[in-house]
């Protein structure tokens, strides 16, 4: 059965029918709900009271649920919510105040009521009105099934978490142990923006990114991260704990930010959950836990949520280095420094249909499936990230046209020295003009980036920038010409084959692999 588009059991419906039987005013109704079950302001207005009474007096009321993707809506199943609350009891968490900043259907609130006898007040904040009601109904259902359970004051508030005044709660309950628990939305602000959602925090550069970073995507942040940081900032000086289900990237970012922010949190822990099993999603996520009102701590212990007797590893700050495995890093830290050779990124042209060629039956064919004739002088073999699988590469699948030897070089020489190539490029001028990036503005025609003397070194040692691999590849010349790499690859260039091979051996050594494993985050 549904009321206000919220699910309600017959047990709860019958209970409300009974308790509100002769009640006509909101004041009386709220007084009764407070006395019986601890709810403060169960009804916000007279209209809600009337609608509820009318609806539950009719046996059926079916309404279809709208699309909840907008809100990043993945309700935590009751089993997981109960396990989280139970786990917190093993850490001597005994809150007087429980806050669930995005309470949804209230599963964490119910789990908290079940596990913590110490609770005196509960705050649930929820933007979706049907869930506000469903939380209330679920709590009533819990009490009807467990009538002797502790009944604290309960406030389920219909509000956006971004507009809610948490600071007042902190101020009014400064001496009480607080628990912030829940599962904030795993969605980014840009995703919400693209869905035209109005449920966004006020535009704020909350990570203080500079203008270019903000423009080029660093301004895209995770809502759960925003909410978690908001909770830490508000309650860091209050006795208590935070336990929130968030993506692993969020936990990594929070621990990273600790170095500069020095929040008063400690005992930071990450309990990895099986998101596929719990939420049927493919993103890596965990329970984030920390203790408030402590001297700032800069490490995080990582556990398996389902078998958490011993930490798998510790990550965080070791002196001024942010590492993914503190123990492994300690073994390899002597090679953490500056590479004496300069690493470069490969070619960027943003015009793959014209600039990337296949060789078919001795002829070059472009991305538009056109067979093209051009001089071979400016054509070089090119490797992409996906090609860097083997230890040594001698030939390439693809070819590319290298129009410049350095960034910004004039390209009018092509017309006179390589007329066929010039004709080909000119015929596809539109494709070059359509390149969106502003870096091509006011540059010579057919400009490319990621080009310099280093690009023409005969021997290269390269690695993919896209895949989570620690394997380096030696790239040899093809037809006595140096092979290029695209901008998804990083490389060192050498004149001498010996130097390239010595570097390859060093970079593929166990020490290097251990070091890279200890500074990279595979799951975030």
């Amino acid at each position, binding site marked *: 059965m549904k009321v206000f588009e919220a699910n309600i059991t017959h047990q709860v419906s019958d209970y409300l029918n009974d308790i509100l039987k002769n009640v006509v005013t909101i004041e009386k109704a709220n007084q009764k709900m407070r006395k019986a079950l601890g709810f403060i302001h169960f009804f916000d207005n007279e209209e809600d009271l009337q609608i509820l009474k009318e609806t539950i007096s009719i046996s059926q009321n079916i309404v279809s649920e709208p699309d909840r993707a907008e809100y990043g809506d993945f309700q935590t199943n009751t089993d997981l919510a109960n396990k989280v609350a139970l786990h917190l009891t093993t850490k001597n968490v005994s809150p007087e105040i429980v806050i669930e900043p995005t309470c949804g259907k209230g599963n964490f609130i119910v789990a908290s009521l079940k596990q913590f006898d110490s609770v005196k007040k509960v705050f649930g904040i929820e933007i979706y009105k049907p869930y506000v009601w469903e939380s209330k109904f679920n709590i009533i259902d819990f009490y009807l099934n467990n009538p002797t359970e502790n009944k604290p004051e309960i406030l389920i508030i219909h509000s956006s978490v971004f507009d809610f005044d948490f600071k007042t709660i902190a101020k009014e309950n400064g001496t009480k142990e607080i628990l912030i628990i829940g599962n904030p939305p795993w969605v980014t602000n840009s995703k919400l923006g693209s869905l035209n959602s109005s449920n966004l925090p006020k535009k704020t550069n909350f990570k203080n990114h500079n203008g270019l970073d903000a423009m080029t995507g660093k301004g895209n942040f995770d809502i759960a991260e925003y909410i978690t940081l908001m909770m830490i900032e508000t309650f860091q000086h209050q006795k208590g704990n935070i336990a929130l289900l968030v993506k692993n990237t969020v936990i990594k970012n929070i621990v990273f930010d600790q170095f500069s922010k020095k929040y008063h949190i400690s005992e930071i822990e990450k309990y990895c959950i099986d998101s596929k099993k719990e939420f049927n999603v493919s993103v890596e996520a965990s329970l984030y836990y920390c203790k408030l009102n402590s001297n700032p701590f800069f490490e995080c212990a990582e556990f398996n949520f389902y078998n958490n007797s011993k930490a798998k590893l510790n990550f965080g700050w070791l002196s001024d280095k942010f590492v993914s495995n503190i123990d492994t890093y300690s073994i390899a830290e*002597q*090679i953490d420094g500056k590479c*004496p050779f300069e690493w470069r990124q490969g070619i960027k042209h943003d015009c793959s249909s014209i600039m990337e060629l296949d060789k078919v039956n001795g002829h070059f064919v472009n991305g538009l499936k056109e067979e093209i004739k051009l001089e071979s002088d400016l054509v070089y073999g090119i490797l992409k990230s996906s090609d860097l699988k083997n230890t040594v590469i001698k030939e390439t699948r693809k070819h590319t046209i290298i129009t410049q030897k350095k960034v910004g070089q004039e390209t009018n020489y092509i017309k006179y020295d390589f007329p066929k190539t010039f004709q080909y490029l000119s015929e596809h001028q539109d494709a070059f003009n359509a390149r969106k990036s502003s870096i091509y503005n006011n540059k010579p025609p057919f400009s490319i980036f990621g080009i310099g003397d280093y690009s023409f070194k005969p021997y290269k040692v390269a690695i993919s920038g896209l895949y989570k691999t620690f394997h380096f590849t030696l790239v040899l010349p093809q037809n006595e010409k140096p092979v290029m790499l695209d901008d998804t690859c*990083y490389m060192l260039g050498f004149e001498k084959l010996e130097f390239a*091979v*010595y570097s390859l*051996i060093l*970079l593929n050594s166990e*020490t290097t692999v251990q*070091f890279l494993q200890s500074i990279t985050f595979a799951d975030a």
Partner: protein
Amino acid sequence: MRIDLLALSQIIDKSVLQKELNYINEIYNFNLTLDLWCDFINEMKPIVNGQKELFT
């Protein structure tokens, strides 16, 4: 990139280095030796170090 190749070159076991080189020579038909290893190390050393040596 943070990998200090110079530091790495100084801690790697030379026998391991030779073994890896032999393996690469065999698989990829090279004929490389460690004859240029010292030149490689010198290439990686900062110019400042060289200047200090000049005056000591």
